[in-house]
């Protein structure tokens, strides 16, 4: 029998565990990853010549990070690993890749998409000024290059990453001025029953908050961002916000890291024509999958945060589970008992993730309250007022229609940063449920592709 070709996209926790399962089954998968090194975002590895210890880099998750990296290192030679390789399209049963100007098209028998997540962002007036970062971007600067995004940094938004990155900055010796959380503290109390599904992670979160407070960082809950002060020449100079009690306050800073938890990178699943469903808890469209990770398209499997935000621990389980499902579908022997146990693990993490979604709710109302002169789409320079005017003029109420007329989501990020907020703004303006606004269709290339592609081939 010819060895089936399994392609794994992504070398984070899900992709690594998927690759490990394939190798254990005697298969040499192709692992495609955009990163220079494995680990993904959450367990991003520092450049080769950097020597910071695991505890310093990954805090409470140091053990998991190290175990994952060691697993990946052990797979080298047994997998066809292609780092710094962008999958820019999936079509015709092939994965289309680009690495610098080198292009390739790889057929597959099974394809596991472990594409990870990016920050879910809510625009704030002034968020285009230099010094304004996503939480993920702030974390990349620290983990990869050991630099802070500023001298005086504010963390604003909500979600576990807000506290994690802020505490990593404190740990690294950066000056964290304040943590401004849009979620009210009461939401966390209400979410406790779900959060107790994974007590260790819950306690990690509590410990992070306590560490920040001990370090003298001002932590505000239930705030409402009003404006990022600054100008185009000098960048961010401060944050104006309203406290939970409704009092307007300002805090001076030269950098701000923002995010409201995460959103899955689903573009490849979309290009592969996987079906999507609306998830009312997170107010996001997610690719459909069964309990093992099978998408609606035969031979395509979805795992990790790229399918649904369930966290890094769940990603390790769902990556392995997805690979076992693929192996089983290819007719290879798999341990059914292990699959059942992994399903149980993912279910537990899903309960915890539901708790997180409740504890750190997406402040959808902020989109509708954006002032007309606030930039909504940074790539294309479209303000909230521009989009509202287009809606009034054309009657557009569907995401792709509004994009066609206003350019919102049409730029190089393809709506990764503004798409969810734009949908909330449209829904509020049209007074329709956000699911009725639909979702921005992904278009190739999922990231910018050089016109020189294939030049030297």
């Amino acid at each position, binding site marked *: 029998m010819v060895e089936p070709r399994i392609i794994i996209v992504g070398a984070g926790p899900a992709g690594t565990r998927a690759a490990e399962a394939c190798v254990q089954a005697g298969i040499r998968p192709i692992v495609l990853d955009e990163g220079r090194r494995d680990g993904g975002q959450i367990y991003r590895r520092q450049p080769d010549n950097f020597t910071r210890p695991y505890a310093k880099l990954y805090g409470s998750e140091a053990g998991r990070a190290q175990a994952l990296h060691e697993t990946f290192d052990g797979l080298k030679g047994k997998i066809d690993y292609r780092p710094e390789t962008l999958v820019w399209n999936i079509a015709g049963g092939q994965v289309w890749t680009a690495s610098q100007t080198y292009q390739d098209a790889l057929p597959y028998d099974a394809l596991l998409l472990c594409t990870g997540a990016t920050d879910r962002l809510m625009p704030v007036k002034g968020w285009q000024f230099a010094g304004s970062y996503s939480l993920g971007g702030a974390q990349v600067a620290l983990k990869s290059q050991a630099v802070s995004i500023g001298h005086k940094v504010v963390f604003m938004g909500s979600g576990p990453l807000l506290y994690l990155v802020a505490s990593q900055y404190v740990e690294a010796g950066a000056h964290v001025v304040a943590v401004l959380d849009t979620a009210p503290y009461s939401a966390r109390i209400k979410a406790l029953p779900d959060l107790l599904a994974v007590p260790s992670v819950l306690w990690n979160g509590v410990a992070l908050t306590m560490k920040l407070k001990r370090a003298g960082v001002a932590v505000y809950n239930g705030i409402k961002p009003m404006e990022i002060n600054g100008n185009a020449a000098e960048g961010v100079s401060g944050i104006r916000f309203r406290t939970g009690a409704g009092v307007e306050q300002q805090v001076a800073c030269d950098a701000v890291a923002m995010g409201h938890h995460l959103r899955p990178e689903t573009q490849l699943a979309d290009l592969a024509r996987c079906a999507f469903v609306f998830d009312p808890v997170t107010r996001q469209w997610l690719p459909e999958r069964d309990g093992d990770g099978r998408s609606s398209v035969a031979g395509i499997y979805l795992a990790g945060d790229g399918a649904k935000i369930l966290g890094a621990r769940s990603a390790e389980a769902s990556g392995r589970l997805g690979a076992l499902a693929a192996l089983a579908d290819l007719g290879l022997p798999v341990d059914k008992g292990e699959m059942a146990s992994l399903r149980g693990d993912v279910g537990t993490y899903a309960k915890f993730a539901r708790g997180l979604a409740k504890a750190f709710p997406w402040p959808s109302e902020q989109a509708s309250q954006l002032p007309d002169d606030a930039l909504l789409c940074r790539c294309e320079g479209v303000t909230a007022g521009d989009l509202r005017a287009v809606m009034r003029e054309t009657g557009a109420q569907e995401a792709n229609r509004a994009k066609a007329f206003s350019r919102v989501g049409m730029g190089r990020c393809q709506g990764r940063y503004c798409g969810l907020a734009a949908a909330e703004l449209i829904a509020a303006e049209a007074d329709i449920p956000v699911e009725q606004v639909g979702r921005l269709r992904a278009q190739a290339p999922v990231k910018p*592709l050089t016109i020189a592609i294939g030049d030297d081939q």
Partner: protein
Amino acid sequence: MSGASDVIIVGGGLMGSSAALFLRGHGLSVTLLETDLIGRQASGTNFGNVRRQGRPIHQLPLANRAIAIWRQSRELLGADVEYLQSGHIRVCYRERPELVGSMEEYAANARAEGLELELLSGNALRDQFPFFGPDVLAGSYSATDGHANPRLAAPAFARAAARLGAVIHENTKIVDAQKVGEDFIVTAADGRTFRAPILLITAGAWGNALSSQFGEPVPIVPKGPNMSVTEPVPYSILPAVGVMTPLEEETVYFRQVARGNIVLGGSTRGPSFPDQYRAYVEPQNTLSQLKHIRRLAPQLGKLNIIRVWSGIEGYMPDSQPVMGPSATTSGLYYAFGFSGSGFQIGPGVGETMAEIIAKGATDIPIQPYRIERFATPS
């Protein structure tokens, strides 16, 4: 019966939307029916060339009529469709020197129809437009052509028509059309029916499904354009640029919009699926497009594309549209199958069809587009 009017138009692309606007100008009541949303397929996804040069000489009167409308589009539509009269250049490559003669002959014939073209050597072109690569042998420059934004154009025509009283039904898929007595009865998938003594089919790639109902099937083939766009860069390329070549794969073109993005089009067209209402860009076609773009303008190799797209276009075997009255049924008119070249002439098509319907005649030559050319001899 959901509605009665003087004219029913089936198909809300640029042809149908502009016809609706001009029919209102003649005082006729209009119902425009669109399967999906206005201008979503060929009209909204094409390259956006507002180009007369390169069209068949017999089509230039229609193209001239259209350019007059484009020039006053802002006033006519009350909207900016990003029309720029910033020139158009057609070039040929060194390996096809015989095309220079074709360009000269075309320029002479076009001048007789009022289109002035200036022929330039490759070096003269590169002096003025340094982005051209060394393979470019010569070019034909049309100062009065340009480009516009397809995403905005057809919807702007439809909104202008609606302001003048045209009734527009989107999300209205027509499944049946027949003539009963003096009237056409048009039925939507959800059972709504519409009645009018005149029916205009502007249904693009779906045109054959309706013309067949009147005994006039045509061999239309659905395809999809191959489009890409770069990230924005400083605005410096004014004219739209295209390659003259007999090879489809080499036929690439580009234009820069005022915002700075460069829109790339051409090379092999992809498949499209009218029944699913989707068209896909095949990755190998993107790669071949980029390769030929590098040959045309090597410096563009330094940029990235950020998005590709396609849409559903209807192609006729002779690349000419079906436009004019039905040969079987009085009161029935067609304007579809524009074969990937309908955007520039679109408003002229709408105005001409409105004229034919309202006045019974037009001075614009439409003989080459008659549907009878596809009739099987009985």
